[in-house]
């Protein structure tokens, strides 16, 4: 049976209101300022380091993202972007319940779809704006600090990084949004989101090799490595780090390269010539499955949340 009217009626109104809420929310503003400030500090450190070490590096500009003391910018992003995303999403739906505004808003001539889509898009939009600001600041500092303009290839790779970071944040936002639908208490939703984040980002990469070894039957070293990597990839942070490693370094031609190198295995075994740069498209192709995985995870989480929300009772 078809419903009357468009499911997206009122979508724009909800989105605008939610974006306005995000940018006036103290929590979100504090988180964004914190992350941007930390990132700028890290990049300044990276600039100093790059000036000292590499003079004839053809991809000097990209080192801005991957160099810099104990914590390079990309590591910082993989850690802190989820925090902004969770801050944006953890009280999206249960907040409406707790303020008792949900039934009043839903008694206006809109479908629930519009409310949820609006909240989702507004969250992604806010996240994108914050990350674009961050990205522009980093590029700006790099220009001033290094005094070398980036070439087109570097800009393209930096742009891919931006898009991937937004997708990565989108995954965590969708997770927080899902928990905000499932749990009536905003505190529960926030804590569960942070718990999942800590588990997937820190604990899973530590435990997954042992788990992989327990189930694998492959005898050779590469087979064991493959299984371990497949297990580790259940964590979106691992996916993000793999993407970043390949996209930001044209000399990396496999997501297993760093691991193999660490194991003391020469890449020549796999027929690769080390250090020969590959074009951007090839780099993206290598990590295409990871990118698709992140986006698919985001969509999956949103769809689960959407179904739960549609079936949920309006009354508290």
């Amino acid at each position, binding site marked *: 049976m078809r*419903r*009357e009217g468009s499911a997206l009626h*009122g979508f724009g109104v909800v989105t605008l209101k939610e974006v306005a809420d995000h940018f006036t929310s103290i929590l979100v503003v504090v988180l964004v300022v914190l992350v941007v400030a930390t990132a700028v500090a890290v990049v300044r450190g990276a600039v100093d380091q790059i000036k000292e070490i590499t003079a004839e590096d053809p991809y000097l500009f990209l080192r801005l993202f991957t160099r810099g003391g104990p914590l390079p910018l990309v590591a910082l992003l993989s850690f802190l972007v989820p925090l902004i995303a969770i801050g944006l999403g953890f009280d999206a739906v249960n907040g409406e319940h707790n303020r008792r*505004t949900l*039934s*009043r808003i839903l008694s206006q*001539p809109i*479908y629930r779809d519009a409310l949820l889509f609006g909240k989702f898009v507004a969250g992604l939009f806010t996240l994108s704006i914050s990350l674009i600001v961050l990205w522009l600041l980093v590029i700006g500092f790099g220009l001033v600090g290094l005094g070398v303009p980036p070439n087109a290839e570097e800009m393209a790779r930096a742009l891919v990084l931006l898009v991937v970071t937004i997708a990565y944040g989108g995954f965590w936002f969708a997770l927080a949004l899902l928990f905000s639908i499932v749990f009536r208490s905003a505190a529960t939703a926030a804590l569960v989101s942070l718990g999942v984040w800590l588990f997937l980002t820190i604990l899973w990469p530590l435990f997954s090799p042992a788990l992989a070894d327990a189930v694998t039957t492959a005898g050779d070293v590469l087979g064991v490595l493959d299984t371990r990597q497949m297990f580790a990839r259940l964590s979106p942070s691992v996916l993000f780090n793999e993407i970043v490693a390949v996209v930001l370094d044209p000399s990396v031609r496999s997501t297993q390269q760093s691991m193999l190198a660490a194991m003391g295995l020469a890449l020549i075994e796999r027929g690769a010539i080390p250090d020969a740069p590959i074009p951007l498209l090839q780099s993206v192709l290598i990590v295409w499955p990871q990118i698709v995985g992140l986006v698919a995870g985001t969509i999956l989480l949103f769809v689960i949340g959407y179904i739960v929300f549609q079936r949920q009772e*309006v009354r508290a």
Partner: protein
Amino acid sequence: MSENVIEARDLTKRYNGTAVVNGISFSVARGEIFGLLGPNGAGKTTTILMLLGLSDISSGQARVLGYDPTREPLAVKRRVGYLPDQVGFYDNLTAAENLRYAARLMGIERGEREDKITASLRHVGLADVTDKRVGTFSRGMRQRLGLAEILIKEAQIAILDEPTSGLDPQATVELLNIIRELKHQGVSVLLSSHLLERVQSVCDRVALFNQGNIALIGTVPDLGRQVLGGGFRVEVEAEGQGLAERIAAIPGVQRVEAAGANRVLLFADRDVRPEAAAAVVAAGGRLLRLSVEEPSLEAIYTRYFQTHAGERHAA
């Protein structure tokens, strides 16, 4: 005027096999104030949510202004205003900003929006707090802001869930006055409540809920006759000879009870004060006091649930 704006037939809502609303039928006529009364958990709010299309109907049928709330929820929601139980607003926004958001969701054109917001806030007496944050508002002010939203919508039906609960007497009176004004503007009102005394004064007809069923339905005097059996109690205080016999002979009087020196209580199925006064005067007595006690909803409600206590134990 006799046209029905809300019709419910065998409306049922089940959660996991348990019927919360069990096959209720009622109708609300245009311009009428209809009260859904009953204890908490009797199914009043669930009924309201089904009428608005905010909750699925397990079986039965509902028609709101001729539309089916499950199939055409937008058509229903465009024409019906809803004030939820303990209505909430965005505390960080001002009264006007909250209404503006709602008005935009209603699809009201930018040109009319501001005028309507100003007019409705004035109507409910919130004009001087237009630009104050709702976080500072009292319960009563929030309820009135909710009514302002219904005014902006120019709704044909206003559905109010427990509009007076938690309000102080002054705020209650103000709110009921606004509800009466809605009626004068031709808006049909469906309101639910467990506060009987207040509701009695505004409702044209009421439905008494009990465990998901409508136990009784009708005007308050009707219900009084059904439940209390003869709703009117007239107290006569007069000096004179043989008054009790004369008064007992008045048509409509069912029973006469002596209530102390010179005082008698009449139980009648209508207001028999004029006849009682005439009888006293005709007997040459001195009439000192004459008062009538109309059937109160409170009494009907209490009596009904006392006599049906056995059926309620599960609730």
